[in-house]
């Protein structure tokens, strides 16, 4: 059993923020795109594969948040060599917030573009490549958040310190 200090408690909060916000954004975003896809499939059954693909896009932000939360937990609770101080706990909160908010915004933005793309592809199947490309654009903000969170975790010494 790991001893819960103020530092590890802060780190736990950070893990919660990372997965909580990205999960919220992903679930709302994915439900919107999936709703569009259901409408598209109701009219054109051949839209099933494209609908699943577009609906899967806002899932990635939750995966990033999940990975950051795992890294924080591994570094804080399973890394025997590192003692999580209050300072490290605050750095962990910064990493969790960076990932959480970037992921939330990115997934919601992506859901709007992907939902429009489902409509566009349903109307004109030639729009598929452009639809995927446009839908992938809001992913970049989640990647920035993810990278900053990773850098904070590694260079602060939470992981591998």
């Amino acid at each position, binding site marked *: 059993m790991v001893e819960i200090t*103020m530092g590890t408690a*802060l780190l736990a*909060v950070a893990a919660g*923020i990372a997965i909580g*916000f990205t999960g*919220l*954004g992903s679930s*709302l*975003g994915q*439900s*919107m*795109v999936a*709703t*569009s*896809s*259901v*409408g*598209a499939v*109701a*009219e*054109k059954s051949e*839209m099933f594969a494209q609908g699943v693909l577009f609906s899967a896009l806002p899932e990635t932000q939750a995966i990033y948040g999940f990975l950051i939360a795992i890294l924080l937990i591994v570094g804080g609770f399973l890394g025997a060599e590192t003692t999580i*101080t*209050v*300072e490290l706990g*605050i750095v962990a*909160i910064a990493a969790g*917030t960076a990932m959480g*908010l970037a992921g*939330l*915004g990115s997934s*919601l933005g992506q*859901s*709007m573009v992907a*939902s*429009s793309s*489902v*409509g*566009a592809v*349903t*109307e*004109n199947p030639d729009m598929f490549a452009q639809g995927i490309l446009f839908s992938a654009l809001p992913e970049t903000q989640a990647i920035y958040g993810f990278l900053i969170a990773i850098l904070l975790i590694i260079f602060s010494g939470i992981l591998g310190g």
Partner: protein
Amino acid sequence: MPDTINPTITAMGFASLESFLMVLFIAIALLAAFVIIVAVKPVYSMFPYAYPNARLRARIGRLITAKQLSEILDSDSLEEVKNYLRGFPEYAKYVDKYSLEKALDMQLAETYDLVARIAPDSIKSIFLILLKKWDIRNIKTLITAKESDLGPEKTAELLIPFGEITDVLEKLVEAESVDDVIMELEETEYYPLLEEALPDYEKTGMILPLEANLDKYFFENLLKTLEDDSDENKELLYSYIGSQVDITNLKIVLRAKMDDLQYEDISSYLVSEGYQIRDWKLKDLMDAENVPGIISLLEGTDYGPYLEEVLSEYNKTGSIAPFEVALAEYITKTAKTLSRKKPLGTGPMIGFLSKKEAEIKNLKVIVRGKREAGFPVSKIKEMLI
């Protein structure tokens, strides 16, 4: 270690580490609440449109293209037109059951019925009112049929079984007279309107007052549902439907001026609260000396430039047909602009309905043209939207 951070926290004015952490958590909670409200709100407003818009955009993709329309136009006979339409699932189920005109109306009614069923709750009431168009059309057909002694079988052929009074249509077909039709409708919302116009009908023997009351009720009800709302999606629908009401009024005004009628003669046929052209403006328009006078009074409205553009054509031919074509063009262009304004709102719905209406109108023009033996294809082409 708390020891190393404590001096910094004290320097920042916090009494202890705990009070600093408390402030930090409150700040994160406030930021989170703000972000969630700001980011999630627009998604929630778009969410109800995701499903209907995808379905309607799929249908936009299945609309008859310009190339296909030109192929239909080149058909040698009505049977060929029928054969062509059998290739479209939307029309195939109707063309073998009904006459071509009725098949087209059935398809349009089915389209409105679908939109009313899948529309988000916030705008559903508008589409439910739009569906009443078929009730009103059916009542008008029944009244006309009874007035001209058409048999029940032939009358039934003319009805479009969509709307709210489909259950009583069979009974209404069997009615003996216009009065009977009105009596059978006693339980419906249309009864007071018909009852109000009944004395006029009995006095003049004309069914126009009955029809005008129904039309006015339909449009005024529709506009009432659309206005006084801060919902941007409703606003978009208001400008689309409101423009159609204005155009209906403008056509009546132009025709009345051609026939030297006065405002009092046509006021009961006009919808009083239009979109850009209100009651007082309609009166002003009817007070104009002639048709060019009406067009100059429309300066400042969106319709003015379209009508001015074809004024020279009217001056040459003396026909108001160019104005009617210009107004139809205005509606098509407006619908196109509006359909792009809210791609995750009512935009695709307006785009689809406008395109569908145009498709049905074009097909009806072709069907009528083909029905007239020897009617030139070039003339039909001129009449297409």
